[in-house]
């Protein structure tokens, strides 16, 4: 009797980890396979998907069997009559944070490969009739956020090298994205200051090697003269035996990263010598961390000062020969990056802006990738002592759509729009909902001589593809500027011994901006290449919080001064120091004043925000903090059935005293 009760208890426990919660498993064999497919398909049936593969989400018990040595039996049961080439867990390697991976359900996902001549739906229908199959998903690929058309570097005959260039890299003067002097040899409409404001930041730091940026993209050419000393290096593998997993992290020969494109996982070697390779990943990597001050090539945002002190680049290859791996491969890239020390995932890719209308649509369609991004950004997996959580930074996309691509549009990611050397949107850039911040990405603008390439972004590239250095444009190029600035910020925080939660750092990043909204009026005309005239009013307040500003970020890390108000007087104070130069254009959500702060400052009525200004009346002298929250990117928050901006919160220090001047001066 006791044994029967015990067995019943065990069965009930097993049932609790079955698919009941995800999809109803009752009477599955009585429903038609097509009905079951409709029930269990996790995602959009109309998305363009890869042939010859699918993803499978199993219940806990079957997962345990499959991973415990019964994979062949599970395959035979689920796909009876179908020739399956391979079924592998998404987690081909044991993750460092196995507990978190299991909590996210990543261990229950499997990729299944079969002949590309088979209909994917037909294969799925074989599986979905089994109750232990909780879900199935198509394998979709992604695309880089650039047209990947590179123009080889040629000297700009109109340009003279600046005598006071920050670094001795020979092409520094051509890099308006780092320091824009309004040089008309770049573009007729070049505007001084349309850059990332990094020159002064470099006096404080140009990056530190403890900051690792995972470039989840096409391969990074790790032998490039301007990148080879900037690569993250797995020394155990470098000094180990070829073909052996020397450091036992589950990956063989992952010296500078890993190649997640290959099917079958037999070869993870980073590979750029494939027809169709564009150099996209190498170009992106160079923007983040090409070695500075080495007398050759280009400079970069966080490539150090010439003493080998720049941030490090980890190549997580998800494109090969221009083709993309699928959700499974992309997911593995994020897990690898988290497990091997990256604190920034630099992701110049996404799904077309028309694909998903809101967060839930993406999450339902790409559950593995979404959970892998959550694994990367979870505070438990943070990889830098100054950060509470790793950052995932994405390109907004190039469909000139009024919303960001996903995954960038997710609130847990940062989505980057693009501007040219004129501080105006690139004609291609997505904008609006889901977009958080802007950065230089280049544009098709002509200089005074009618030459066009110089307004794009110059960076490292692959010699056999287009040349050692080349110009490219896109939000793909804008994104690594934000990754580089974030890397500088993390470096500086580390130098100062400061520590932030993931949200605090992200909020500082998104409020470290120069205003560009003041330029967004009128129109931007090209008059060539069929590029449409831009109505700039469409972009007003829709490029994110502003143009990323490296100097401001480092100043925020040093500390933001208090704002002064006059005791007993309703005072209006400017919060641009806290919310960036575009503070007046943000949508503010809330002002939180603790009971303690109310008591200290004698606040009897809730302060108000209007146009970036805080109206507050303190009836007592003293100092305390209040919290102000706003939306980074648009007028509504994203999440659930919304696509929108990210909530940012800043703690504002208030000093209430008997006198204050309108410019913040002490007297």
């Amino acid at each position, binding site marked *: 009797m006791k044994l029967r009760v015990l067995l019943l208890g065990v069965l009930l426990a097993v049932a609790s980890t079955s698919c009941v919660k995800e999809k109803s498993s009752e009477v599955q064999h009585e429903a038609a396979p097509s009905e079951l497919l409709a029930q269990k398909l996790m995602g959009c049936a109309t998305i363009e998907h890869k042939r010859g593969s699918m993803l499978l989400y199993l219940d806990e018990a079957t997962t345990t069997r499959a991973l415990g040595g019964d994979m062949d039996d599970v395959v035979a049961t689920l796909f009876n009559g179908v020739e399956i080439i391979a079924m592998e867990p998404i987690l081909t390697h044991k993750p460092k944070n196995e507990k978190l991976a299991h909590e996210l359900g990543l261990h229950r996902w499997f990729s299944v490969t079969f002949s590309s001549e088979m209909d994917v739906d037909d294969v799925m229908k074989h599986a979905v009739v089994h109750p232990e199959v909780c879900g199935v998903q198509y394998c979709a690929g992604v695309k880089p956020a650039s047209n990947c058309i590179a123009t080889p570097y040629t000297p700009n005959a109109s340009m003279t090298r600046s005598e006071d260039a920050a670094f001795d890299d020979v092409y520094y003067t051509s890099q308006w994205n780092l320091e824009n002097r309004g040089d008309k040899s770049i573009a007729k409409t070049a505007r001084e*200051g349309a850059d990332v404001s990094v020159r*002064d930041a470099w*006096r404080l730091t140009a990056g530190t090697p403890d900051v690792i940026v995972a470039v989840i993209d096409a391969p990074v050419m790790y032998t490039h003269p301007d990148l080879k000393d900037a690569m993250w290096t797995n020394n155990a593998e470098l000094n180990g035996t070829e073909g052996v997993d020397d450091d036992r992290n589950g990956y063989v020969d992952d010296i500078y990263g890993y190649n997640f494109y290959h099917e079958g996982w037999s070869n993870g070697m980073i590979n750029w010598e494939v027809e169709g390779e564009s150099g996209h990943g190498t170009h992106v990597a160079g923007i983040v961390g090409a070695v500075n001050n080495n007398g050759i090539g280009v400079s970069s945002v966080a490539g150090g000062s010439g003493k080998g002190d720049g941030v490090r680049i980890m190549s997580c290859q998800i494109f090969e020969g221009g083709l993309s791996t699928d959700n499974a491969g992309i997911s593995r890239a994020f897990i690898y990056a988290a497990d091997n020390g990256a604190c920034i995932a630099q992701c110049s890719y996404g799904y077309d802006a028309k694909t998903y209308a809101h967060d839930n649509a993406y999450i339902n369609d790409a559950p593995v990738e979404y959970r892998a991004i959550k694994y990367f950004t979870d505070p438990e997996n943070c990889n830098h002592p100054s950060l509470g959580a790793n950052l995932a930074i994405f390109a907004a996309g190039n469909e000139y759509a009024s919303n960001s691509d996903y995954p960038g549009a997710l609130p847990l990611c940062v989505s980057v729009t693009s501007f040219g050397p004129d501080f105006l949107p690139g004609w291609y850039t997505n904008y609006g909902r889901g977009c958080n911040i802007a950065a230089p990405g280049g544009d098709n603008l002509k200089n005074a001589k009618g030459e066009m390439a110089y307004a794009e972004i110059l960076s490292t590239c692959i010699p056999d593809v287009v040349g050692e250095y080349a110009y490219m444009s896109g939000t793909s190029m804008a994104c690594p500027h934000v990754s580089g600035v974030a890397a500088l910020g993390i470096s500086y925080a580390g130098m100062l011994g400061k520590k932030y939660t993931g949200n605090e750092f992200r909020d500082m990043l998104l409020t470290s901006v*120069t*205003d560009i909204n003041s330029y967004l009026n009128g129109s931007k005309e090209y008059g060539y290449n069929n590029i449409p005239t831009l109505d700039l009013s469409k972009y007003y307040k829709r490029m994110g919080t502003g143009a990323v500003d490296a*100097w*401001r970020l480092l*100043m925020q890390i*040093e*500390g*933001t*001064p*208090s*704002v*002064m108000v*006059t*005791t*007993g007087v309703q005072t209006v104070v400017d919060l*641009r*120091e806290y919310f960036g*130069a575009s503070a007046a254009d943000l949508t503010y959500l809330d002002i939180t004043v603790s009971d303690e702060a109310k008591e200290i400052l004698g606040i009897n009525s809730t302060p108000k925000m209007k146009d970036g200004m805080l109206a507050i009346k303190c009836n007592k*002298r*003293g*100092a305390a903090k209040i919290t102000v929250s706003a939306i980074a990117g648009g007028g509504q928050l994203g999440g659930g059935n919304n696509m929108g901006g990210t909530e940012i919160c800043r703690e504002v*220090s208030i*000093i209430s*005293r*008997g*006198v*204050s*001047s*309108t*410019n*913040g*001066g*002490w*007297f």
Partner: protein
Amino acid sequence: MRRLIYAMVALAIVGLAAGCNKNKEDEGPKGDNRDMRLVGSWHCTAEEFSTEVYVAFTEDGAFDLYQRLGEGRYRFYDGTWQYDGTTLTGTYSDATAWGDSYTVAYLDDNTMTLTTTLTEETMTYTREEIPAEVIQESITLRSETDSCDVRFL
């Protein structure tokens, strides 16, 4: 003889008057914007506000102000000051007037207080040279462009 005595007394009176006038010149004549005792560099620590202030008043009526309100770098302001013998006022170089005027009182040669006229808030300043690192690492907020100039000297 009487005329001589009267003349000597008159001279003595004139001499005394001249002496008093000399004392007043030491304090700075009324209507003049210079209080020579004010001239120099001063430091104020306002602990209740976690604030540090350095200010240098020059003879020609200019001031340089370095303030750190809580966190971050010192912020630099400059402008002009005026003193009518009773009240100290000033204007920043961006044409913003000081938030209030101040009564100056000297506790000794190296210590003064500035008290706001309207609210009678008193802060104590001690004579001290502005540290080089405060000057070198300060920044100027340019309100018209909302950017910061780095003062790397």
